[in-house]
């Protein structure tokens, strides 16, 4: 029985300084987009539920940077960061959230259904666990056609409780599918702590049930995420099958919506503050400064560029027309 054991991702020096910089600015961009959403949400023009990834950016960015553009991603209700990290179009994302015709899917889905399939962001499905078999099916299609693409299923800690995750783990391991099961463990499902939903055991143990290797890493360390994912991607491309990846991280704001909610009683301010200390973006920034890879002027210029892009995208999303009712009945059947 040769199930590779869980091991710390090899945090070697093999990440170029360009990439280290890229990690930082990609995460920062995701953060700034989501803060932009949070700041404007009370205007009540984004009229759909929003689930922000603020605090969790390292997982989306680290994992997607380990992918090629042709690789594919499936996400959940909390999909903004994955969409952006997979090079999804920002203007079309915000337009979608504003319900506009220019949205990435014409306003049909809103924030919980972001997709940009041409970029490999295939679909986001808001039912917990429901996109996991789609990802396995995507990997099966690639395996059948001899493509070397890899598919990633992002999901939260609660998805481990849904049977469909296990059905797919079993199948993917059996068929050695080129799929990565990336669990973004932020400790909560809505307002319920992991300890109230799952027995105490390392979450990576679920991989054993399906004879699949597991890798775990600090989900607030983008380099660690990148390296673990890259290893899993290489395995998959070599035809060695799926890997379960576990990244612990933390959602800073409320489950759904733009606000902070540490006061409502399901978690403590101190827990939040501890995790906030471990901000993945601040961490990466420190690392860059310490390594002398970033100077303040350069940083400021890049940030200004990002802000300008984001402001332009919001301006676009606000001004472009709403989706039109005459289109509502299109595309029921192909």
């Amino acid at each position, binding site marked *: 029985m040769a199930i590779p054991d869980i091991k710390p991702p090899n945090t070697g020096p093999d990440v170029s300084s360009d990439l280290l910089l890229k990690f930082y600015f990609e995460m920062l961009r995701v953060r700034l987009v989501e803060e932009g959403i949070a700041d404007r949400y009370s205007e009540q023009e984004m*009229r*759909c*539920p929003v689930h922000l990834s603020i605090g969790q950016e390292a997982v989306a960015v680290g994992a997607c940077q380990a992918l090629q553009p042709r690789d594919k991603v499936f996400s959940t209700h909390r999909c903004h960061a994955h969409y952006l990290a997979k090079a999804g179009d920002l203007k079309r994302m915000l337009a979608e959230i504003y*319900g*506009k*015709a220019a*949205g990435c899917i*014409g*306003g*049909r*889905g*809103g*924030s*919980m*259904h972001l997709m940009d399939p041409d970029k490999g962001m295939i679909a986001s*499905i*808001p*039912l*917990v*666990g429901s996109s996991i078999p789609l990802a396995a099916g995507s990997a099966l299609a690639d395996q059948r056609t001899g493509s070397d693409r890899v598919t990633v299923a992002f999901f939260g800690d*609660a*998805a481990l*409780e*849904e*049977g469909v995750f296990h059905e797919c783990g079993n199948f993917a391991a059996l068929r050695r599918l080129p799929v990565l099961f990336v669990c973004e463990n932020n400790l909560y*499902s*809505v*307002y*319920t702590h992991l300890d*109230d*939903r*799952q027995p105490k055991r390392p979450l990576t143990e679920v991989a054993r049930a399906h004879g699949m290797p597991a890798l775990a890493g600090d989900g607030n360390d983008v380099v660690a995420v990148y390296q673990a994912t890259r290893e899993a991607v290489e395995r998959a491309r070599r035809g060695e099958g799926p890997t379960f990846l576990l990244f612990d991280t933390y959602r800073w704001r409320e489950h759904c919506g733009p606000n902070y*909610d540490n006061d*409502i*009683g*399901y978690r403590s301010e101190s827990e939040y503050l501890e995790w906030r200390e471990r901000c993945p973006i601040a961490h990466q920034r420190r690392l860059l400064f310490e390594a002398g890879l970033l100077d303040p002027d350069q940083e400021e210029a890049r940030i200004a560029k990002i802000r300008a892009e984001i402001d332009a995208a919001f301006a676009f999303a606000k001004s472009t*027309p*709403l*989706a*039109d*009712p005459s*289109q*509502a*009945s299109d595309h*029921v059947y192909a």
Partner: protein
Amino acid sequence: MPDDRVITFGEAIREGLIEALARDEAVFLMGEGIADPSSFWGTTAGVVERFGPDRVMEMPVAENGMTGVAIGAAMAGQRPVISLHRVEFALLAIEQIVNNAAKAHYLSNGYHKVPLVIRIVIGRGWGQGPEHAQSLESVFAHIPGLKVVMPTFASEAKGMLIAAIEDDNPVIFIEHRWLYNVAGHVPEGYYRQPLNGPKVAVKGRDVTIVASAYMTLEAVRAAKVLEDIGCSAEVIDLRVLRPLNLGPVYRSVQKTGRLVTVDTGWVQYGIGAEVVARVASECFEALKSPPLRLGPPDHPTPSSRGLIPGFYPDGDRIVQEVGKLLAIDPERLKAGRRTLAEQRRDLPIDTPDPFFKGPF
């Protein structure tokens, strides 16, 4: 018992749960988000504090397993109440519901009982989109062995919930989210509202409108406007989709000769189809014009408020259609529709209409 107390539908549900928990140790609640600060849209607020986590059990995210566990506990004499935030999540549990909950009593030749209530929320609005806004009640209503209840008014929500919990059968208890803040006169204390079928919400002579849940309110609103322009519509709140007792509907159609149904879910193979089919058979001679079915068009629910206009039937649409059916003078009809338009004014299309705050 002062019945002039006004509380909302959501509060009425909560009272029903509390009364049932207090009355019977075997009653307990299971679900996701019922013992947390969201407290299932407020319907379980403070309940875990009062009854403790063994009576208000927060569950893992596993709808199929959770439902099966509840069925097993019910077969063992407990009276679980499960809550599911959206009917889409209930789809994961439908094998358990259809094969085990609905059939245990029949299959065991009457031995096993499944005193289980499955609260399922349907609804709409605020850009929920295609996978968070379906109304799939007809799927459950098709299955013998289930009871399917869909209250509209706050006092009935409480009484029917208590009756559902007392019932020895699995009851699918459907709550429309846009009703939660609608208020009504609700008696205090423990009382049952029998699960015995439709009820006339507005008396009338010219046309019978059969609706459920939030659509009943739209129909009531339409009936008021129609009244003003000289047309008397009878509105029947369906309330219990299974077992289906259409006696009151037949009596109404015998009188009015005309039938309009308004579904919250899709029209094709929907609730209205059964109502129309039965009325066509039972009131064949009485019908003066073709029965008419209203409901959302035959496509998924888009998220954007830009795509939603025209999707859901509303008072205005009902008034228009009844106007056509009864050949109401177009000018009078316009007046009625103007009243409705004034009520709505610049209200957003994707949040509950404050007109419906009640009390009803």
